[in-house]
């Protein structure tokens, strides 16, 4: 008989906890870069300038997103660690109250008072088990929830870079012959759409959804909506740059 190995499942779940950074970073990398390409293609007529601006935007975006994820996780970890430490102190100072409150929580979740008492009594024989259960049940805290700021920052930054390559590469490889030649932009948008759909589909697969294509379409619709808005804004502000729709470049 196959035995469910919870430690394997735990490892998988811990790995999947980085999915937020991967999806967020890639999606932002793809969209920001596609948005820059679309926006600048509307406002700037020189292909090389658009590519350079997009590269600069990618570098800045990857660093900013990586730093943001690093700082965010660090702040979250600090707050969570403080709360966990406080719980530990409370448990040491008021052991009866900790047990009483855990008993109350278990009762609240449907166990009878007597069964809750016996569970807490059993847990009390192993202080670490009592404490970690109390942390989860009473405060919704868990040491497993403490992420690594460096890993999160790196994951987010790299994911952004990978995402940025998706629209950038076809845009570079399909050069534009002139201001009205949108082949590069169309190629970039096509790969962007495909990649966004793929991320949504992957997300649906992870969540074990039956209609994964719907997840893909949903992701694509939300993300492309932002890109189209970026292009329209680019068109709207083009007159502000002067020179009939192209930005003058220093030699």
């Amino acid at each position, binding site marked *: 008989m196959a035995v469910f190995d919870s430690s394997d499942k735990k490892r998988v779940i811990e790995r999947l906890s980085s999915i937020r950074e991967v999806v967020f970073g890639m999606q932002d990398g793809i969209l920001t870069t596609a948005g820059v390409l679309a926006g600048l293609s509307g406002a700037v007529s020189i292909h090389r300038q658009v590519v350079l601006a997009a590269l600069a935007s990618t570098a800045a975006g990857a660093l900013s997103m990586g730093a943001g994820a690093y700082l965010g996780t660090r702040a979250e970890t600090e707050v969570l660690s403080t709360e966990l430490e406080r719980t530990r102190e409370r448990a040491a100072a*008021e052991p*009866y*109250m900790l*047990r*009483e409150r855990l*008993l109350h929580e278990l009762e609240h979740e449907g166990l009878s*008072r*007597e069964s*809750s*008492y016996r569970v*807490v009594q059993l847990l009390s024989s192993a202080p670490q088990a009592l404490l970690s259960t109390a942390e989860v049940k009473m405060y919704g805290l868990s040491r497993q929830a403490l992420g690594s700021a460096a890993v999160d920052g790196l994951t987010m930054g790299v994911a952004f870079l990978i995402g940025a390559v998706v629209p950038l590469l076809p845009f570079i490889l399909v050069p534009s012959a002139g201001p009205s030649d949108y082949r590069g932009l169309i190629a970039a948008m096509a790969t962007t759409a495909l990649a966004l759909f793929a991320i949504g589909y992957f997300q649906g697969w992870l969540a074990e959804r039956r209609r994964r294509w719907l997840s893909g379409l949903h992701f694509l619709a939300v993300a492309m909506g932002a890109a189209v808005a970026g292009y329209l804004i680019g068109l709207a502000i083009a007159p502000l740059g002067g020179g009939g729709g192209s930005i003058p470049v220093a030699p």
Partner: protein
Amino acid sequence: MLKPGDTAPAFDLPCAIDGREGRLRLAQIDSDWVVLFFYPHDFSFVCPTEVVAFNKSRDAFAAERASIVAASVDDAATHVRWARELGGIGYPLLADAGGELARAYGVLDEREGLAMRATFILDAGRMIAYAVACPINIGRSVSETLRVVRALRSGRMCPADWQPDSPPPARSDTAG
């Protein structure tokens, strides 16, 4: 909450006594003093420290002609299992399911439906001689309850921290 001088409400309730279910009326208790203490719940972690501590001091209370009776909102069957869990309790645990008795003594937490931690000492005429209540997270001192029973029995003016072997108070200490 009732105060010293008030008549103690009578009771006639199911209870757990000597490891089985029974019934107890206040009128059945023939000791000079009755220590009636309310506690919130069976199968909890603060209450048993008090229930067990009173049980250990049962003989000391009996020597003062005082009976101990405890009450909570749990039913008698739960009391029996709880008493067994604690290794046996030699005084009655009243089943005040619904909290009527606690309400009559003014110590029912209506929101929680539980009795507060309150202790009453009833005299031979079943009037309240002493009443005290404390927060739910603080266990009571059994030795303090015993000291008060002894002080009440002495019929003397007892200053702070009085003990049975304390010397009589000086004349100036007796006022107020």
